[in-house]
Every structure is written in structure tokens, then in C-alpha cells.
């Protein structure tokens, strides 16, 4: 393995498991007869529905309007009739209000409002296209992109980084995008740079993806302001703060945001979505999803309409070869385990992993031996063993003093722990509790 120049301290090396899908070209997934589009797909307030049961909708029509600034509209991913607006299972947990649409199979679209010559659009116009197209972070967290593109006036941004690390095992959706349509990524990056008035764009890609590096480098060859850098392969290289540090050696302050060090980070998939929104007038109603794992018959990279259920996606991949023991939305390090396949793909669904019993098996935890491996691998320099202990004892003051809130929940500590202790899990519990306490004390 070549040792890349750009890296961070800590981290782990989980098996890549990308061989299932890395050479699978992106295919169009069958569009289902019924789509279920959640009105809440990320943090922030849910959207207000703009349609009602019985309404006819077109492909790409806005059907949900966010109530606050931190929000993004949602669009119909098919043309057809709204069957109902009801609470449905969500892949991010619990039930959320969703628009259920019967597909008429015609894909009758709204007239795309193509803005003509992109070069003549000013940053404000570009940003409003990003907002109206419902663009969110495609890496998984699905944070509304227009918010990231609206730094306060006192935060001077000088660098835009695109995240092409894709450090989660199994996932290859960014990888295929970088190989198949790198020009969309470069185009999207240029739009982001124009919106932010920045002349320094950097795309970071892990060095275990030489084909992607080559492809994106070739597409960026003519761009003076865009640099493509090879990152040392290590999890969590795609974590925002670690990525910024690896590339710029700037450290996002504890509790701060990338904009505090003059950087805005977006996923390569987000850049491509921005490019499509601006050049084709296409809102975010479909995304690339890696479908992988030992229990799925034909692992694939698919372009899936938002609202297609996991079951429909898996059926398109030839179904199952054996009873799955676990189904994950996202990657195996940070993804969310599902209790049913009856959940829809949303804007943040980077992968659907269908794991066999053997793949999903988790060893029993035993006593901590204080080996310190969790401290060694923590990219934030936390002491997961002490944090976890504090949390398990219910001592939230101690957990807070040990910087629980700085945890990025990458899971490296739990992954490496030889005693198989639920380290990151108990830290997440502490974070929730601390946040709840802060809210309580702020309101009292």
C-alpha cells in the first residue's frame, strides 16, 4: 500500500469488503408502483406537506416545504396520485409523516426550469437553486446543503473540500460516481466555489481507490483552482474534522464547525447533485445506493428513486440468497440497523447492507482490560474506556468533563476493543442525556 501524504492521528483499518460492488456499474433501479417519501429525512424541523390525498403529482414536483432555515424541501420521485399522507417506518428510526404516492408509470415531469447560461448566474441565484432542489449532504447525515453554503459574514471561507474518501466498508456509491461521471463532481464543485466566492477547491480520495483518483484527476486536469489529493486509507478518513485536518492541517475547534477554520466540506455525491440541479433543473429525487452484503443475491450500485422501499431495492438485486440476520442503512461502522425492509430509501441512504448470520455475528462483551487500544485509535483523542464507564454508571457530569460531546461516533473504539465492550454505544447514550439536561436547564 502506498503511504499517502494526507492523514490524521488515530483510526482503524476495518476490512474493506468493497469487492462485492466495486466493479458494478451504476444501474437504474426499477421504479416501484408505490413510493413512500418521508417529510423528515434529517435533523431539523419536518416539512409541511404541500399536497393532499388524491392530488395528482408530477415527477420532481415539490411536495414538502421546510418550516425552518435548517431544512430542505422534498420532491416527488414519480408521477402519479397521492394515496395518503400518513406515519410510516423510517430508516433513521421511528415513524415519520410520509407522502405515499401511487406511480402512474409515465414519469411525467414538471417543466424543468433550466437557468440557461450558468456562468451568468450570480451566487445568490445558484444558492437558491440548491435550496429549491432539496439538496442535502449525500454522505449519510443528509444535512441541508444550502445551510452549509450560507456562512455568517464573519466567517471567511477560503477552501472548499469535496469528500471522496468513502471510508465506510462495503460502500461504493461515491466510488462508482467518481469513476463514471467525474465531470458532474467537478462541475458541482465549481458551483459551490462560486457560491462561496472561493478559489481553492480540493477533492480528497483515499489511496485504495486508484481508479477513482485517476478518473477525477483526469476530469480536473484543466482546472487551475481544483486539486485532487490522495488520502491515506484509514477509517474514519471521511469524518469532516479528520478530513479537513488531513488536507489542510487546520483543526476545527472543539464544539466548532468547519467554517470556523475557513472550510466548507461537501460529499462528492452532493456536488454531483448540485450540478444536476443547476444544469438539468433536476431536484434531488434519486440517489446512488450500494446494495451489498452476503445475503443479497446480486450486489449492485443502483440509481434509486427516493421513496423506494428497501424490499423493492433488494428484489431488484435478485432477492436474498439466505435469511438476512441484519439489514443496515449506510455502512457497517456508522449505519443504522433496520427492524424491517419496509422502509424507504431517503436522500441520506448511501447503502443497504443485507448481512448473513455470520457477517452480523457480534461477540459477547467481557471486562475491560485497560489495554488502551480505544485511546490509541480515537481520532478525537478521547478516552473511550473512561467515558463509557462514566456513562454506564450514570455519571453524566463526569462524561461531560471527559468531553463526551466531542465524540464523532465513528465507532473506532468499539471496533478495536478486544473485550468487545459497547464503548461508542454508551458514549452516544451519554451525549443524548447531556443534551437533554442542557435543554432542561436552558428552559428552566
Amino acid at each position, binding site marked *: 500500500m502506498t503511504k499517502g501524504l494526507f492523514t490524521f492521528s488515530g483510526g482503524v483499518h476495518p*476490512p474493506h469488503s468493497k469487492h462485492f460492488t466495486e466493479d458494478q456499474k451504476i444501474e437504474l433501479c426499477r421504479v416501484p408502483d408505490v413510493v413512500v417519501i418521508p417529510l423528515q429525512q434529517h435533523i431539523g424541523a419536518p416539512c409541511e406537506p404541500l399536497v393532499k390525498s388524491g392530488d395528482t403529482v408530477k415527477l420532481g414536483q415539490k411536495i414538502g416545504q421546510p418550516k425552518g432555515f435548517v431544512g430542505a424541501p422534498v420532491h416527488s420521485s414519480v408521477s402519479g396520485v397521492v394515496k395518503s399522507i400518513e406515519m410510516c417506518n423510517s430508516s433513521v428510526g421511528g415513524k415519520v409523516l410520509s407522502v405515499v404516492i401511487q406511480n402512474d408509470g409515465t414519469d411525467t415531469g414538471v417543466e424543468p426550469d433550466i437557468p440557461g447560461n450558468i456562468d451568468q448566474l450570480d451566487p445568490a441565484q445558484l444558492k437558491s437553486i440548491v435550496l429549491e432542489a432539496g439538496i442535502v449532504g449525500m454522505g449519510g447525515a443528509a444535512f441541508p446543503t444550502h445551510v452549509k453554503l450560507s456562512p455568517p459574514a464573519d466567517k471567511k471561507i477560503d477552501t472548499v473540500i469535496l469528500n471522496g474518501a468513502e471510508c465506510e466498508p462495503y460502500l461504493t456509491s461515491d466510488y462508482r460516481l467518481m469513476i463514471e461521471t467525474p465531470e458532474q463532481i467537478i462541475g458541482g464543485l465549481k458551483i459551490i466555489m462560486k457560491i462561496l466566492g472561493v478559489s481553492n477547491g480540493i477533492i480528497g480520495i483515499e489511496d485504495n481507490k486508484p481508479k477513482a483518483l485517476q478518473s477525477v484527476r483526469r476530469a480536473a486536469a484543466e482546472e487551475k483552482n481544483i486539486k485532487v489529493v490522495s488520502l491515506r486509507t484509514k477509517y474514519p478518513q471521511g469524518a469532516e474534522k479528520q478530513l479537513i485536518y488531513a488536507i489542510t492541517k487546520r483543526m476545527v*475547534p472543539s464544539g466548532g464547525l468547519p467554517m470556523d477554520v475557513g472550510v466548507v466540506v461537501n460529499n462528492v455525491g452532493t456536488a454531483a447533485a448540485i450540478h444536476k440541479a443547476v444544469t438539468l433543473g433536476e431536484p434531488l429525487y434519486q440517489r446512488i445506493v450500494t446494495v451489498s452484503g452476503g445475503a443479497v443475491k446480486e450486489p449492485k450500485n443502483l440509481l434509486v428513486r427516493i421513496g423506494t422501499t428497501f424490499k423493492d431495492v433488494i428484489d431488484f438485486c435478485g432477492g436474498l440468497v439466505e435469511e438476512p440476520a*441484519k439489514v443496515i442503512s449506510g455502512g457497517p461502522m456508522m449505519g443504522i440497523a433496520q*427492524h424491517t425492509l419496509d422502509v424507504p430509501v431517503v436522500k441520506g441512504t448511501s447503502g443497504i447492507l443485507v448481512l448473513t448470520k455470520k457477517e452480523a455475528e457480534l*461477540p459477547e462483551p467481557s471486562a475491560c482490560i485497560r489495554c488502551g487500544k480505544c485511546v490509541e485509535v480515537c481520532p478525537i483523542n478521547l478516552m473511550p474506556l473512561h467515558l463509557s464507564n462514566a456513562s454506564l454508571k450514570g455519571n453524566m457530569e463526569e462524561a461531560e468533563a471527559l468531553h463526551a460531546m466531542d465524540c464523532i461516533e465513528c465507532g473506532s473504539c468499539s471496533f478495536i476493543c478486544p473485550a468487545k465492550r459497547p464503548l461508542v454505544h454508551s458514549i452516544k447514550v451519554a451525549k443524548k442525556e447531556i443534551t437533554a439536561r442542557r435543554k432542561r436547564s436552558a428552559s428552566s
Partner: protein
Amino acid sequence: MSMLTVTSAPHIRSKDSVSRIMLDVVLALIPAGLFSVYLYGTRAFLTIILGVASAVLTEALIQKLTKKPVTITDFSAVVTGLLLAYNLPPSAPWWLPVIGSFVAIALVKHVFGGLGNNFMNPALAARAILLAAWPVQMTSWVIPNADAVSSATPLAILKGAEGTLPSLRDTFIGNIGGTIGEVSAAALLLGAAYLLYRKVITWHIPVTYIATTFVLVTLLGGKGLETGIYHIFTGGLILGAFYMATDYSSSPITAKGKLIMGVGCGILTAVIRLYGGYPEGVSYSILLMNVAAPLIDKYTVPRVFGEVKQHA
């Protein structure tokens, strides 16, 4: 469709395990044990077997009595039993390893909460107790191939006891008097290399420990470089530095803390060897630093990523 498992991320784990780590330590200790059996014969073998058996049985018994899951398959009791036996002289009576391992497991390990909670190295603390209770049996040394003649160890000779100092080569290979496990520096270093390769231990404690001892003994001892080298290969320094001071539960967690631990052990060992009543001092140095480990941990908490230094 059958039930899907729902757990919190991450959904995959590394192959490392506690038993694999402990097994690695056992494997690393085997060359030194074999050498000792070759050197001292069945007596050493018996002591090792009794030490291990007593440790494992004690652990099983305590866990049965306290109705806790029996964890003898994690090899941690085997490691403690081995280390205890390695700290005994080859002439030790049969009951010495039995009592020693019982004390190590029952008093030092389980009274304080079991694996990961002992604040001292169990084998070393037990050795200190044995040394106080049965000083004669604990310090009767045999010269290899010389029919159980009691003799002074090289360090005792360096300190003024009667006897001829063995050659440096013999000290390195292990043709000298000493405890069962400490005798062959070469065999111990072989195992240590394996532990470093397997990342069971890091270099921080052993290297700083040995280097500090060497430098101080050479500089303050005033007997030259060669005496300094003798000090490295004798008196259990290699065994202590690589296998005992690195005990996870009783040493600091962070790299910085480990460096302090190593230097501290080195200073104490040099002081005891040069100015103290004992010829060696590795055990007491490590035990003293074990007690200091929580304090070291407290002052070596790593700076959190992006933490801004507070200005008062």
C-alpha cells in the same frame, strides 16, 4: 421473514480478543520457560506447572464461589501463574508457587475486582509477599550445571558479594543464577519481539525503563559501561520491563503516561540497585510505579482534538 437483529453501530468488530492477547503473552513467555527447564531440569518445570495450575484453579474457585462467570479460558490467570513461577528461584519448594499464585489471584486480582481492576501487577505483589514471608526459600540460587550450590547472583556480586562474575555472554544467554524466568535475556527478548510485533505491548515502557536504568547505573555507579550492560541483562530487568511493567491494569493508558512509568521504574531500579539494601529492585520499582499509575493517568489525559487552551 425472520427477526432482524437491531444493534447500535458499529456492526463489525476487529478480530482481536482478550484471550488472544493473553495467549500471545503466554506464547511469548514460552522460550524463557523452555530455556529454564533445559537449564534447571524438572524442578523448574514442576514449579511452572504448579504456579499455572494454582492460578487457574484459584480463579475458577473464586468465580464459582462468588457466582460469577468463570473466565479461566481467557488465559489471564495462566499469564499470572507463569509470571509468578518465573519470579521464583529454581530451588523453590513445591508449595511456594501454589501459595504465590493463590495470593496473586485471590488477594491482588479478585479482591480488587478481577481482570482489569487490579492496581498492582498480581504476580509481582505476590512475589513481594512471598519474599517477606519466606526470605530464605525465595533467595536460594543455584548455579546451573553445578549441582545445586547456593550462590550469589551477578548483581549481588556487582554489589560486593563473594563470587566470580560470569561472562557477559553467559549473562545474555542465561548461563547464570537467577529466578526461573529471568535467567535468559536472549529468550525473553525473543518473546518481547513477538509481543511488539503483535502490538500486545508498545515500546514506551520497556525501552524507557531499560534505558533509564542503564544510563543512571552507568553514570552514577561509576563502574563503567560494562557494568551498565550487566545491569540490563540481570536481576529480572528484561522480564520486568517487557512483561510486568507493561501489565495493562496497573500501568498508565496513554503513550505519554507510559513514558513516565518507564522512566520512573528506571530511576527507582537504579536507586535501589546502587544505594538500596537489595541487589536488584525491579519488583519494588514496578510495584511503586503501579501505585503511581492512576496519578500519572490523571495528569496525562490527552488534549482533545480541536480543544482550545483555556486562557484564565
